[in-house]
């Protein structure tokens, strides 16, 4: 390799810095491109269990701790553009027996809002035509709700008779 280095010390130092930068980038390329490919392939392998269009749509909620059966039932039972409310335990301590953790407490209603659109999630029960009881005691609702789906694990979906 014939390298012509002329000019001041600064120019030579500059060239050395440039060369070190290129060498560093080359090392990064050699080491990190295979690493990136491995990572992407590993992510793909980890997602390989997700099969079918419906399950792929529900998997995000599943990862957040929202039961698959509850998601699928909500899509099936609540009519498009109906208002619904999500009722969850008031505290993490009350939620624990249902297997609901802090992540699910926070993300659950937001995920259901995303999933069920154009069905519209409302905050209070007054405007709700349907109620998704996610790990909750249905007793206060029993008088005015026709339960359309239950999983026996504390999750229920019902139509509110007198909103």
């Amino acid at each position, binding site marked *: *390799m*014939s*390298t*012509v*280095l*002329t*000019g001041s010390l*600064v*120019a030579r*130092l*500059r*060239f050395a*810095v*440039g*060369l*070190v*930068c*290129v060498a*560093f*980038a*080359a090392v*990064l*390329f050699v080491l*990190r*491109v295979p*690493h*990136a*490919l491995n*990572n*992407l*392939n590993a*992510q*793909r392998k980890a*997602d*390989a269990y*997700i099969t079918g*269009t419906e399950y*792929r*749509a529900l*998997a*995000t909620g599943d*990862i957040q701790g929202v039961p698959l059966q509850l998601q699928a039932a909500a899509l099936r039972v609540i009519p498009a553009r109906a208002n619904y409310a999500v009722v969850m335990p008031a505290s993490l301590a009350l939620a624990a027996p249902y297997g609901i953790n802090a992540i699910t407490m926070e*993300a659950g209603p*937001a*995920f259901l*809002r*995303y*999933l069920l*659109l*154009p069905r*519209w999630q409302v905050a209070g029960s007054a405007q709700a035509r349907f109620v998704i009881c996610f790990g909750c005691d249905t007793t206060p609702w029993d008088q005015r709700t026709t339960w359309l789906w239950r999983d026996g694990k504390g999750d229920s979906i019902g139509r509110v008779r007198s909103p």
Partner: protein
Amino acid sequence: MIAGIIELNALFTASGLALLAGLRGWGSWLELADELGLALMLGASSVCVLATLVLVAGAGLSSATIVLLGVSVIVVGIALCAVRRSPLPRQFGTLPRWSVGTAVAVIAALGTIAILVAMLRLAWIAPMGGGDSFQFWVPKAKAIYFFGTIDTSRFTSLTSPRYPLLVPALQAMDFRLMGRAYGPELGLQYWFLYCGFALSAATLLRRLVPAWLAWGFVALTGTIPELDARMINAQADWALDVFYGLAVIAAMVWLRSREPWLLGVYVAFAAATIATKQEGLLMMSSFAVGLLLATMRRWRSVWPAVAGASLLAYAANLPWRIWWATRHLPVTLPTLGVSGLLHHFGRLWPSLWLIVRLTFAYEHWLAFVPLAIVAALAALTVRGQARETAITFLVAAVGLVAGFTYILWDDLTYVLDTHQASTPMPRAVGSIVILATVLAPLLIEPLLRGVKLPGLDSNQQPSG
């Protein structure tokens, strides 16, 4: 369903090609083929920014509207082409001569393609990722898709109602052409964005630096761990960064080559950056300030063009700002005011330290920022345009660090830790990383001048 996403991106590419034909034209078919990625991103940014204006005007994004938006951009491109008499390709073109440099460029390009293929395979099967995607970005897109307009209490009652509209508009257009609001498929749209970014960055950078250096750093963007982990998430962070990266490259290439069409490209990408996230305004402002400071010596020939183009990009986003201001939507980021900031002065240093730690976190971002800083400091010793690039990079990066520090200092709801759930900063600093990565070739190339390495001649001007 994926056919709809492919159709939308084909429309973007056709729109971008028409704009490129109008703005500059091509000498050969090879040159045109080389700019397909740039056409995709130019079309995506133009059509999406127009789509946000349509939403602000109270209309929806029906299939007819989407086609009309694309066709209107195409008509503008054709009209420009006719008025400017831009050349259209008449010959095949010449492939680059074979050399060590070409071989290195081919290897780097193959590395990029391999990463793109792996990312596509993942986007094909992955569920929708990212908390913000289901918290508000995709619900907004679904609201536009189902209810037809943003002027409803349903849209404005969603989280972060003041966030800019480009991402929900893009996703809503995807849903419309897919015929179904199916979130997981949006990963494919984000793959198109990264694909377009990689091809565009290589095309633009090669106008200034040898192909091996340009492709090398483009391939390296695909190795950024945070990019691999989150690029296909239906959020705004990486969409923001790819538009920003391309705006930066377009401006820097314009600064050196002074080809007017690049200013048009800069306007489109800068407008898209501002329309994607609130941080976009900070990012483009700090970059424009860096550019202005770097070119003080020749301000007469640079400043009017840079200021004019930047203001034009901002102006495209003014209707949205007026829209939410007139509807008194709640602020996304509460502000403490001067007295509040002074009262919480103790947050300043931890906020700054957190931003610096996040920016230099090798496990998330590798070492592109330190690499670019070293190259920039060395490039400061080179007179002329290399020094301008270095100053622009350093000022823009410092501006971003200062801006993100201010946001953390000002917003007491952000916990000062490195968790993704506590603060958006672990993702926000990606803009500093992308700035460093796309400018690194422009900073390194001048350092290698005056030295002859067989086949890797950095003195030779790159060809298309």
